[in-house]
């Protein structure tokens, strides 16, 4: 187990170093002078030069990289150019929107997709299966941001039940917060659920062909009992992988939906920070995102070991 954790930790560090290097280089190479962006195109040259000096932009790249990493390691984050606060503070504030949104969307995805996928597999090639497969094929084709717009159109414009976007903040009450995140979560969940349902179906179908399911039937279990008692848990092993991928996509990839619903999430923070060349925010946020992805992969591996007893033996 220790070796397992050690390996994991090494991957974690390697990914973070890799990501930080890539981000730093990309920000370095691509055009756009933060000082110039901050002061506007008409700023005079002296002012720009002074600001560059103040921001430390005139130091060599290696020094700046090491200073940045050193800061991250010791927990002292940089200052955002455009917001004037610590990037750490800024990111944490945005995470309070993105993480609940991702959790809600993932929850909806799982609640919709697993029963549908399992149901479709149990009705292989019959009406129930064909309907689920057809609907999910449609679901995959619909861009999630368009579905978000349609939801706004229906619930906000036609019915007037919800606001067309925005986020009141958790201080206004948990219920208000959740209801503001509800439509965006549905928009995110639809496409993911369609993919996950199809994947679950084929995983369950694969397991239903296994010998041990036949053994279960030979014991006298009904088709249904064999499905739920023996097939589903085995089918979850590959399904969990996809769920992990989807969740890391949700945590980092909600930028488009955050724009549709005007939510102050991490994706939009990165998006706006890039537009403002707010370098400290961009690079810290990206490293945080990468860390989240690795952590989720780790949780998925733990889930595996919980579902599949064969894995525990190998890791010790």
């Amino acid at each position, binding site marked *: 187990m220790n070796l397992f954790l050690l390996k994991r930790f090494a991957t974690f560090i390697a990914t973070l170093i890799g990501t930080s290097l890539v981000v730093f280089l990309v920000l370095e190479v691509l055009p756009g002078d933060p000082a110039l962006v901050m002061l506007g195109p008409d700023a005079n040259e002296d002012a720009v030069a002074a600001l560059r000096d103040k921001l430390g932009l005139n130091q060599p790249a290696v020094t700046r990289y090491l200073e940045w990493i050193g800061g991250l390691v010791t927990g002292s984050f940089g200052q955002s150019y455009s917001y004037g606060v610590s990037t750490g503070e800024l990111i944490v504030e945005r995470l309070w929107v993105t993480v609940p949104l991702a959790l809600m969307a993932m929850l909806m995805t799982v609640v919709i997709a697993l029963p549908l996928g399992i149901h479709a597999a149990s009705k292989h090639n019959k009406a129930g299966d064909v309907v689920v497969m057809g609907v999910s094929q449609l679901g995959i084709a*619909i861009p999630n941001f*368009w579905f978000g717009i*349609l939801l706004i*159109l229906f619930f906000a*414009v036609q019915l007037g039940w919800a606001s067309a976007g925005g986020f009141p903040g958790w201080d206004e009450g948990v219920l208000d917060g959740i209801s503001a995140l509800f439509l965006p979560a549905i928009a995110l969940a639809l496409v993911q659920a369609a993919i996950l349902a199809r994947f679950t179906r084929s995983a369950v179908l694969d397991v239903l062909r296994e010998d041990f399911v036949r053994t279960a039937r030979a014991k006298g279990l009904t088709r249904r009992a064999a499905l739920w008692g023996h097939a589903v848990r085995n089918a979850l092993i590959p399904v969990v992988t996809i769920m992990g991928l989807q969740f890391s996509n949700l945590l*980092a990839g909600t930028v*488009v939906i955050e724009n549709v619903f005007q939510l102050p999430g991490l994706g939009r923070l990165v998006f706006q920070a*890039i537009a403002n060349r707010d370098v400290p925010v961009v690079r810290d946020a990206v490293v945080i995102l990468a860390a989240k*992805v690795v952590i989720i*992969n780790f949780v998925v591996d733990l889930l595996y070991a919980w579902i599949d007893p064969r894995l525990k033996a190998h890791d010790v």
Partner: protein
Amino acid sequence: MTVAATPSAAPGFAARALRHPSFVAGAVLTGLIVLMALVSYVWTPHPPLEMTVSQRLKPPSEAWWLGTDAFGRDVASLIMAGARNSILVGVVAVGIGMTAGVAFGLYASAKRGWTEEIVMRLSDFVFAFPAILSAVMLTALAGAGTANSIIAIGIFNVPVFARITRAAANSVWAREFVLAARAAGKGGFRITVEHVLPNIVSILVVQATIQFAIAILAEAALSYLGLGTRPPDPSWGRMLNEAQAHIFRSPTLAVFPGIAIALSVLGLNLLGDGLRDLIDPRLARKR
């Protein structure tokens, strides 16, 4: 796309294809979208970029089939012309991704060992990050525009094709006829070109179809964020963005471009699934 003429032209392939419902539905939908793009070069109901200021935000009517947008442009014409953009970005991005990815994958498979390890770990690294966010960041940094969005989407197709190529090529390398060719003294490059590539083309065609669908979705998302094709060139994603600003006055504006995106993606996915079904049993019988 010349689907029927792909190397899967085994005897009876066309006959089986015509009886395969999802293949037929996918081919028809995809064909219609391509046709729409082609027709838009010679004819659209109105010139797509013509603004009729007196006719802003009109609902669908006989004169304006799908209504007009906030500048008084004809939505139907914009959608027709927008198909060109989606297809262009999809074809070029997948083309770039496929060319580079297949080259890496074949190289890794022919060399094995460290080369393979490095190529695969690199592609893992690109994969680890949600593609849409990376594409957003790249285009935001490099500047909005068709070329940059093509590059951003293309980059994320490279590891997809590299992985799939390597896996498929490795299984070809293990087959008897390749062993025979190696025993006959043929080099890695010749074997790759003469034996490996022809045997994995069908798998690549299926994957390309599906990646094409994903590229259309990604392009739409980038354009929606204002990072894709720049105005005035028509683009479905940006039409949705503009529509959202007028959602209370003119709700239908937000509907039609989305339908166009969904139908294109649906068509390509059905086509890909159908192709996979049609090709798979053939592979199974070879075993």
